[in-house]
């Protein structure tokens, strides 16, 4: 999917992050390429969510640069969609209204068109039509994730960031969600950056995986390549998978 002589869509260079004296990232660098699905893995608390938020501009890094390279210059808000770790759907609004929030914010979109678009996004993410008029608390965990994705897609973003999209879903639900992400990438040419702990997801959907450890991205490569990597953390991480895969055969 990606050849590395292409210019990256987003490049992170020399990123330092600290909260008080607590150092999260130190001289971290990472490239994200057009049209790829990039997985981000790392122990819990290694700053995966923080890295996403810095890329989104929600947290200002202590030092370092995050550059967007785009043919049309700077990316604006509507070209990035985000699915937060806990969904972050507006609890007082129905799914339909949640999806329409960015459209309303932009203004000038006719009501019936907004309804059609919301129905479209709801169908794209595989929610049943009735979900449109439900509030997030009336949905199951898996449906909330889908609703969150529908909202993230509402303005046709070019890049989507997903923070642990399959965490808390049952394996079947997780597999369906993975298929959905693959399908969206293939149909819409999305660039997808997903933080995940789910090894099955990594194997199924990602083109490359960035491994966060020791405050840096210690490797960013395809899973096949990472399996050959000798770094102790990476070996420990992929060791379980290899043995499980051999069991399956």
């Amino acid at each position, binding site marked *: 999917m990606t050849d590395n002589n292409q210019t990256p869509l987003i490049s992170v260079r020399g990123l330092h992050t600290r909260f008080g004296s607590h150092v999260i990232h130190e001289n971290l660098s990472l490239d994200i390429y057009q049209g790829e699905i990039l997985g981000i893995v790392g122990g819990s608390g290694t700053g995966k969510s923080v890295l996403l938020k810095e890329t989104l501009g929600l947290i200002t890094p202590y030092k370092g640069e995050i550059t967007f390279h785009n043919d049309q210059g700077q990316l604006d808000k509507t070209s990035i969609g985000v699915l937060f770790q806990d969904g972050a759907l507006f*609890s*007082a609004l129905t799914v*339909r209204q949640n999806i329409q929030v960015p*459209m309303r914010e*932009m203004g*000038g*979109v*006719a009501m019936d*068109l907004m*309804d*059609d*678009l*919301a*129905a*479209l996004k709801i*169908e*794209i993410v595989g929610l049943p*039509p*009735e979900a*449109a*008029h439900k*509030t*997030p*608390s*009336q949905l199951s965990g898996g449906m909330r994730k889908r609703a969150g994705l529908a909202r993230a897609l509402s*303005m*046709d973003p070019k890049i989507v960031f997903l923070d642990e999209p399959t965490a808390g879903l049952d394996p079947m639900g997780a597999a369906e969600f993975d298929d959905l992400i693959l399908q969206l990438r293939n*149909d*819409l*040419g999305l660039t997808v950056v997903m933080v995940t702990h789910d090894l099955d997801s990594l194997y199924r959907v990602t083109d490359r995986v960035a491994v966060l450890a020791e405050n840096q991205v210690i490797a960013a490569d395809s899973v096949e390549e990472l399996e050959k990597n000798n770094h102790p953390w990476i070996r420990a991480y992929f060791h379980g998978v290899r043995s499980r895969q051999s069991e399956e055969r």
Partner: protein
Amino acid sequence: MLISIEQSSELTTLGMSGSLSIGDATALAKELAAIPVKPKQYLVIDGHGVASIDSAIALVLKKQMYRWQSQGCHVALKSFNQQATDIMAFVDKHSQYRMPPKVVRPSMISVLEDIGVATEKIIKNFTHLIAFSGLVVERLLLALRHPSRLRVTPLVAQLDQIGFRALAIVGLITFLIGAVIVNQGAFYLRQVGADVFTVDLLSITMLREFGILLTAVIVAGRSGSAFTAQIGSMQLNEEIDAMKTLGMNPIDVLVLPRILALVLIMPLLAFYADLMGLLGGALTAWVTLEVSPVAFIQRFEEAVTVSSFYVGILKAPFFGIMIGLSGCYEGMCVRGSAEKLGFHTTRSVVQSIFLVIVMDAAFAMIFTALDI
């Protein structure tokens, strides 16, 4: 204009250009709908000048095409680039259904229905509150049988939070109300030459009613709401469910310490409120009526009997129970979302103040009947 129209004998060519996105979609839909068409007409949408479109534009185009086709026109797309073709195919694949319509009822009926639903809700809420009280009493009796199982640490923490930390605000408010009663009372009583009765007015109303009522309202607003918010957010976080699975009874852990703390602290707070109210009144009487503290105390002794004091203090634990039950019950009712937390917190405060005042009226009738 987003569309250029070229008309020849039987072919209409609609030209589009540029990078189109959701911001243009509404205008585009209007322009397309305004194009006059005849049945059997041939329409071609020419996209050779289009750089990119998004799903909103694709949706608008597809919908208008179907509309024309259903009117018997022949519509075709011409020279759209790969991106535009892909997204139109994608939208086509996924526009199987519309938004299900919301049910709209005639307004008269829906108003009546709303009233009915609201009434039912209120009644249900009160029956549930009564059931909850039963549950609490049951757990309390069990706890009294095994006093070692009473949770002392949270009880002490609540005593501090509900009682000690409320002293400033309770004192300030009752002090000011005491001052106001004397001020206003003196103004009117002086007109009939009965200004000496100002002290009677102050001491009887403060001891019997105002001291405890003001305390109850402040505690409901301060601690009742806190109970709902604390228990409610635990409910949202599934902490209550977790407790149950770990063999802890949430009533024992969360509700009993709070209600017991209120029962213990309310009489003390009410006593303190009485004192501060009388102090405020006495100071005002001294300054504005030139009733010296000694004269005030003499008049006070003549005006009230100790029963006036007991009447006020006796109500305190009952009001405390009411506030505690209502606050904890509403907290337990929180489900689903942060919005519900706000709703139940509001309801807990309104409900406990309402119940306190109803109960106060009931007490007044009982005391009148008993001639106290």
